[in-house]
């Protein structure tokens, strides 16, 4: 079963969207090492399908089609308290395993190593039908 694990980070204060840009080098490194380890574990377990980090929302655009079908871009997005920072797609044996992984992501270390407890959204990727046996 494939799941999309969406990591939402709280918006930063000041010029940067990403809080992490204001952390101490030690805290930053601890966080990155943690994520690196998480990804490695996922790969070693044979559960990794894809993972991407997203650029800051201030770089993003909202797009709608105009009457001629051409893109009309808008943005950056309205400010929000939290935004999607990145996602994983994992292929796991059960929903519980996906939740467990999401909880690990949620507890990624923040400033001074304290767990961030970020909200992580878990959604099942739609599959093809099962047989009607």
């Amino acid at each position, binding site marked *: 079963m494939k799941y999309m694990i969406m990591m939402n980070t709280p918006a930063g204060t000041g010029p940067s969207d990403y809080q992490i840009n204001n952390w101490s080098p030690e805290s930053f490194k601890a966080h990155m090492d943690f994520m690196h380890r998480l990804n490695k574990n996922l790969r070693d377990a044979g559960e990794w399908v894809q993972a991407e980090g997203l650029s800051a929302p201030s770089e993003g655009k909202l797009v709608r089609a105009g009457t001629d079908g051409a893109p009309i871009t808008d943005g950056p997005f309205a400010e929000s308290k939290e935004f999607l920072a990145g996602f994983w797609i994992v*292929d796991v044996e059960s929903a519980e395993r996906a939740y467990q992984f999401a909880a690990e992501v949620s507890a990624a270390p923040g400033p001074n190593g304290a767990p961030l407890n970020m909200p992580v959204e878990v959604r099942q990727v739609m599959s093809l039908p099962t*047989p009607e*046996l």
Partner: protein
Amino acid sequence: MTQQTLETRIAHLLRDYTPQVLGAVTRRHGDFAAAEDAVQEALIAASTQWPVAGIPDNPRGWLYQVALRKLTDYLRSEVARRAREEVVASDAARDPFVAPPDSEIGIEQDDTLLLLFMCCHPSLSGASAVALTLRAVGGLTTAEIANAFLVPEATMAQRISRAKQTIRNSKVPFEMPTHAERTERLGSVLHVLYLIFNEGYASSAGDSLYRVDLSEEAIRLTREVHRLVPDHAEATGLLALLLLTDARRVARTGDSGELIPLDEQNRELWNTSMIEEGVALITAAMNQSSVGPYQLQAAIAAVHDEAARAEQTDWRQILSLYTVLDRLSDNPMVKLNRAIAVGMVEGPGSALSLLDELSRDSRLKEHYRMDSVRGHFYEMSGDRDRALTYYRIAAERTTSIPERNYLTAKAARVAFEGLEKTKRL
């Protein structure tokens, strides 16, 4: 021979020879995990070299020889790595390249079965056993398997290597299990083949252009098991079930991939030769010995397949088969299917009250199929409002796109017909 037919022929040869060569190499070296890697490398070498250089005179010997070389290389580097000392290894595999005759390879008839017992070991998770079986017994490359499951090749490689590690740690010997163990282990083998088939059957509705046909592969391997244990009624039952189900595959999806339920399928599209074979197999199996779940499911599939039109389906017989199946297993889907049969025999009222009872089962309570079946029987009973509600809930709950589309369309139809009726009044 065109390039394409050459490549198809090569693929078939490789799949047939893989378990034979792997069995022989494992027997010679004892290390299943290392032997399996070596055979995989030989397979990859063959699939790149043969299309260009042609199929060698003795393809099996060629594969065996290349696998042995790879294994020797591996063992050498392994020893070198571990001990950092001079190794005196057999130079046999360094001799000028001559594929040995079959008599020297030591092909054993039972190797395929042995390998299946190994790969479908109960200590492995379903997904791991499936991947390992497809590679070690099915002769597929890691890339092909990864492609079939839509995961990166590295992920599939890791899954396979972990599965082999589990086998290595559990110290399963490469030998025929005792008679008592055999029955139990055959159960695991059949289950894994069933999973492979399901995966293929499900994916056949999607974009399967570049995907190995897993259903065909499952049928091929199940045939092999049936050949090895022809008296095993459940193995026969499984083969019959797969054939009788696969026979309906083409009729099951429309032009744009939409799902067509059994009662709306164009039965002329069903594969009659597969049905005939499946019916013959299941008839023989059920006369032979005690019945099991695969035989019963096959018998149910046979009843469906033998009805020329949906209205001619013998639901009474299906109901009695589901009743036996329900007694044999504690499977919520069987209970649900039995409720459908009850409804088809006794009418929607009986089905709906049975469904109320079943909804106390936590496994079924929030299952979309429960809602979809309720929708169906409410529609049958003329209660459009409830039918609409349940179809919509079911559409929300399913995790399959074609199923969601089917249920949404059904809900829309019920809503639209209701509207038309009101207009006429």
